[in-house]
């Protein structure tokens, strides 16, 4: 599945819900299901300090593909992280560096990405991209 197809799949999933609470119910389930990050990786250098919720992010390149894992102390934040990881994992650094992550806006979650929202997510997306850009340079 291409990164575009993955985004479209998520958009389709969210289209089922016309009620905000249902959307969030789904995000919360995703948050609960997000694989737990290796506790060794919950370090300060991986911490993205937001105003409210905190996010830890780890990024590595395996066999030429990006592999992200992340965690947050807020479950909704975690659910959105789950979506980002689903879209961005197993993609090449080049793909991610160029990617337009429009699905966030399309499913109505852009408010979580505004810099003033300060839940660490905007910085996280930036860091995910930066890790990919770095990897393209290293290649």
């Amino acid at each position: 599945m291409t990164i575009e197809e993955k985004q479209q799949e998520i958009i389709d999933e969210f289209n089922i819900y016309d009620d905000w609470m249902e959307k969030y119910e789904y995000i919360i389930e995703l948050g609960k299901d997000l694989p737990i990050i290796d506790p060794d990786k919950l370090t300060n250098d991986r911490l993205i300090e937001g105003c409210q919720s905190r996010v830890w992010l780890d990024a590595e390149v395996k066999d030429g593909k990006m592999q992200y894992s992340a965690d947050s102390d807020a479950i909704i934040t975690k659910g959105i992280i789950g979506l980002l990881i689903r879209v961005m994992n197993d993609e090449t650094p080049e793909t991610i560096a160029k990617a337009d992550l429009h699905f966030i806006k399309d499913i109505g979650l852009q408010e979580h990405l505004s810099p003033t929202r300060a839940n660490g997510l905007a910085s996280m997306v930036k860091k995910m991209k930066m890790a990919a850009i770095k990897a393209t340079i290293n290649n």
Partner: protein
Amino acid sequence: MSEGTKRPFSVREIREEFPALRQLIYNKNLIYFDNGATSQKPKIVLDAINMYYSKDNANIHRGVHFMSQKATTEYEASRITIQKYINAKKSEEIIFTKGTTDGINLVAYSFGELLSAGDEIIITAMEHHSNIVPWQMLCQRKGLTLRVVPINKKGELIMDEYDKLLNSKTKLVAVTHISNTLGTINPVKEMGVKAHAVGAKILVDGAQSIQHMPIDVKDMDCDFFVFSGHKVFGPTGIGVLYGKEAILDSMPPYQGGGDMISKVTFERTTYNELPFKFEAGTPHIAGGICLGKAFEFLTSLDMVAIQKYEKELAEYAQDMLDTFEGCRIIGEAKNKTSVVSFVMEGIHPFDIGTLLDKQGIAVRTGHHCTQPLMDFFGIPGTVRASFAFYNTREEVDKFIAAVEKSINMLK
């Protein structure tokens, strides 16, 4: 308080005057419980803003023409309305600022110029960052020492410790009247008496009290009282610093510019009298005029009845929240009002706040600009519901149901 007949308090009638309350958020009737952050505006204020910019807009204090004089008259009339409302001796003691933060910074800079190394300033453990950081900056600049009155687990000041901190080196006590996070009402009058006994001045941060109770600076006998317009049903970007005339007179100007001068030559400038000495540049004219309208509105209300109503509303909400398993109320002072802060075991405040928002309920989550207080309670933040006189018991019931729904989703 100024004299005059007060209309009997009716929440139904008052709500009619606040158009912002009548709107749908995510298709739900808005429940606005974020009054600690900012208040909604009554029609009298909204109309005044519209009127000012559509008809009366002119610069003040220097024009010969009709519009300028009209704007000046209204701006200065607003100063008098506020003076009367807080029972200041003179209108010269009312300095217009940008808000509470600006007022505190003005005092920290200007009054701070009168202090010297070794002097001490006392604040408390429940201060908003804006009543911490300006004093830290002053202490750094002038080599002063900052002392902090501790609190107990209920969120009340430990007054014995306050007594111990006061000494002949204490020059200023800066304390919040009502804690924005805990709702605790501090005994500022008693603290003032004690501060004065050692020759210190007291600044009361009224950002969270001016909208909730009658304020009488003469009776409080505080040396400074600061508040923001937008939290008291007025516009943003305008606020007030009240200061006793003799003290303000002894303080040097804060910012230089137009309006604050008497005569300027390149060799020497003499400064204008109070209050203009502290009001450099074109002020927020519309803000000042419309803040006066907000106080006209308040003057017509029975603040004693309102204070009682809001306290009962907050207590009702707190009692209901307390029935949830795992709920911890942050701030259980005996003397508190208008604010209920809480955390739910195992649930992040941000998650509750997000789900409440989607149910049309506006609350604040986070550290509320009181990080040292969060550290004291060992929590990352709280969910805070803060009430105003236009909130109702029915809204609290809906809020409680929404909290319950959110908890069930998040568990």
